[in-house]
């Protein structure tokens, strides 16, 4: 037994689903879809390379991402979703099933008819009743007829048969997030007056017929159903939690082999899986399902990214299988590291929702923490031994510099990082601590680099200010230098402000190097200014934000924009948009709006959080001092964590 297995015995004990033994109690969830595939639904080489990685994650059950079952594309929710409505798609599914079987896991193919969120290539979607979209990303609804219901159920059963023919052990249907099954189950979208609508019994009829049809089509194979423990749509006429659990009972009576408990619809008015939801928050729903249906295996993993917590939940009997996806996007070796007692080396999902932000822009999903995600098919993204082992110096121990350093070290280079402060983290450090959502998630990035630098023997030299004099002292000692010094506030762009010398620097304030008074004006309503303003306000300061453009949060990840705007409102931080600071003095900031009107905002401190500029001076100064000179991250263009990690990694793979 591995050391990790001894520490997490419940997670790593064998399980069973419909007569099939599983190596452990971990189920790779189908999560969302990758958008890596061909537009006609055929699985791409990119997807196959990705699924090979998924198959190797060490999960006892692997669920392959949802395939739409109908030839019309009404069930298709994502531009590059895979299809399983015809035999011509089977060969690639066979390959994936083969990957899973090779690893000794149980392969489950999810069949996903998106209902209300479907018809992405069409001018409409189908659902039980015509309930307009609350998210205009999706298509206008048409009411599904009874004949179409029968046809849709047949499509599901046929798709299930194809999945089994391809070599999967079983199938899964899903009502997660508000897909077709959920649309029938929910009072919010099912307002029918026939036998498929009205009472809970009637609303559950589609689900029961669907289960029955798949069970008849694939009688010897497990069928998993994903059902909401909470829709979070009840304020708008959706199902109550009690109704959700009655539907689970209906599904259990129909003989499903596992229930995966999920939370929320895409259009729900509250969060379910973001960083602002504490891990474990929804566990009660799984526990309720397990108590209600002790004989049915229950899988759960909504906002439950931690294997240690999952192990405890299984021990307590709250659920049977830990179902996860996003943590395995961030680190495909998470389960292996847990098994080998190397969890401290894992890259944690930080809940930035970069993945879903991209999927809803019809882009392939990527991961802030895993720059190789989706590029597994490309040799250029692989960490391979370097042909020539080099001695490399890195300037800057922020995410870009550290990502480069550990990637280059894995390839065999000897890496030394020079950092002017006394620890790893760069500008992320100050802002991670001030994150209102969950500082620990962002701090986990810093901890990861600390652990990996030590493990990979990256030499860290702190307290070193990189400048030409320093560089001259290092002449001919390194084959390459990487500048990852990040961005700084562009004070030159603020020189028009009368009294600009009094401006404080947002990065220095964030890191505690500059102290602000009680009343603060923050110039810039982007992520730097917002994060700082929010934390200052929470710390008891009076804060006003001055933003030049029409809206705040312009550089914030789409799925986090609303959080910042909400926090700003909840905290009562005044925001002056379309405005600029003209003068700074002991009275405060004189602010001019786009109509030329002046206001004096009383303040003890004025903090510049914008504009940012790449810190590129060293590129010119070092140019003739080292053989190879490279840059990455915000030192090239100020952006953020995602591009810093991606570029550090890419350069590390290449150099």
């Amino acid at each position, binding site marked *: 037994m591995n050391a990790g297995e001894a520490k997490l015995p419940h997670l790593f004990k064998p399980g069973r689903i419909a007569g099939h033994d599983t190596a452990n109690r971990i189920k790779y969830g189908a999560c969302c879809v990758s958008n890596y595939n061909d537009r006609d639904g055929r699985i791409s080489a990119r997807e196959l390379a990705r699924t090979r990685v998924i198959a190797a994650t060490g999960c006892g059950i692997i669920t392959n991402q949802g395939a739409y079952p109908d030839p019309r594309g009404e069930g298709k929710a994502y531009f590059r979703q895979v299809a399983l409505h015809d035999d011509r798609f089977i060969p690639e599914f066979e390959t994936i099933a083969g990957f899973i079987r090779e690893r000794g896991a149980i392969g489950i193919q999810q069949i996903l008819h998106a209902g209300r969120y479907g018809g992405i290539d069409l001018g409409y979607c189908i659902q039980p009743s015509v309930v307009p979209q609350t998210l205009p990303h999706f298509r*206008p609804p048409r009411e599904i007829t009874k004949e179409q219901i029968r046809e849709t159920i047949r499509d599901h059963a046929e798709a299930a048969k194809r999945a089994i023919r391809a070599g999967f052990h079983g199938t899964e249907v899903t009502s997660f997030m508000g897909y077709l099954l959920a649309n029938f189950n929910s009072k919010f979208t099912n307002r029918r007056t026939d036998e498929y609508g009205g009472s809970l019994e009637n609303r559950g009829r589609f689900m029961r017929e669907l289960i029955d049809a798949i069970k008849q089509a694939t009688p010897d194979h497990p069928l998993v159903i994903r059902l909401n423990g909470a829709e979070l749509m009840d304020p708008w006429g959706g199902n109550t939690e009690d109704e959700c659990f009655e539907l689970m009972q209906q599904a259990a009576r129909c003989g499903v082999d596992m229930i995966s408990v999920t939370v929320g619809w895409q259009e729900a008015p509250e969060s379910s899986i973001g960083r602002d939801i504490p891990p474990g928050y929804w566990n009660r729903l799984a526990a309720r399902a397990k108590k209600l249906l002790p004989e049915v295996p229950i899988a759960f993993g909504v906002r439950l990214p931690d294997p240690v917590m999952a192990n405890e939940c299984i021990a307590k009997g709250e659920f049977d299988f830990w179902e996860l996806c996003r943590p395995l996007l961030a680190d495909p070796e998470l389960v292996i590291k847990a098994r080998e007692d190397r969890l401290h080396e894992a890259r944690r999902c930080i809940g930035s929702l970069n993945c879903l932000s991209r999927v809803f822009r019809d882009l392939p999903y990527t991961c802030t923490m895993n720059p190789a995600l989706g590029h597994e098919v490309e040799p250029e993204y692989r960490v391979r031994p370097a042909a020539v082992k080099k001695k490399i110096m890195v300037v800057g121990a922020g995410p870009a510099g550290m990502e480069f350093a550990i990637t280059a070290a894995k390839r065999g280079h000897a890496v030394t990082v020079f950092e002017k402060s006394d620890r790893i983290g760069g500008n992320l450090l100050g802002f991670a601590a001030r994150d209102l959502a969950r500082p620990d998630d962002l701090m986990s990035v810093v901890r990861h680099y600390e652990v990996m630098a030590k493990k990979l023997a990256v030499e860290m030299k702190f307290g070193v200010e990189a400048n030409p004099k320093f560089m001259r002292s290092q002449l001919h000692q390194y084959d390459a230098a990487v500048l990852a010094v990040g961005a700084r506030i562009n004070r030159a762009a603020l020189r028009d402000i009368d009294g600009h010398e009094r401006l404080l620097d947002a990065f220095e304030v964030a890191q505690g190097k500059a102290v602000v008074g009680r009343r603060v004006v923050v110039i810039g309503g982007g992520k730097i200014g917002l994060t700082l303003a929010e934390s200052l306000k929470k710390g008891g300061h009076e804060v006003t934000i001055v933003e030049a453009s029409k809206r705040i949060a312009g550089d914030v990840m789409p799925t986090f924009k609303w959080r910042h705007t909400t926090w700003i409102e909840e905290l009562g931080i005044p925001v002056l948009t379309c405005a600029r600071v003209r003068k700074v003095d002991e009275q405060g900031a004189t602010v001019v709006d786009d109509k030329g009107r002046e206001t004096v905002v009383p303040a003890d401190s004025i903090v510049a959080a914008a504009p940012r500029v790449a810190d590129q001076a060293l590129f010119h100064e070092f140019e003739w001092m080292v053989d190879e000179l490279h840059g990455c991250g915000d030192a090239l263009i100020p952006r953020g964590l995602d591009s810093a990690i991606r570029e550090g990694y890419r350069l590390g793979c290449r150099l």
Partner: protein
Amino acid sequence: MPENTQRWTDALRREAALFEPLTAGARIGIVAEAIVAGAARASTMLVWQREREGMRAGVERYDGFESAPVDLLIALDEAGVEGIEGAIDGDFVRSLRALVRGGHALFFARRPRTELEESGYEDLLDEIGFAYLGACR
């Protein structure tokens, strides 16, 4: 729902800059959630309409959201109706935003996103806090 259309027209025109990007003919309907839920199918809705000279409020018959001749339908629960009525002479945009965030107002889009953008809704929806992307959050 409030049916004092002149006061609503005045309120909308106070926020002229926000509605200015809308193309002429753009229409937003506002109804009580109880009506949307089917408690009273035939009722009235408040309509904010963009006309060439600016915004105008009116009251129209509401026969269900399937047929409501508007681009967006805002359904307000009891607290939402109270909130928006109370804000008619004040910062009603801010109030509406708070109602959306508080779960007291729900938008139904009767046109797809691309069409809404073409009709100039982007700024307005952003200002109100309309979830544009899908909220698997």
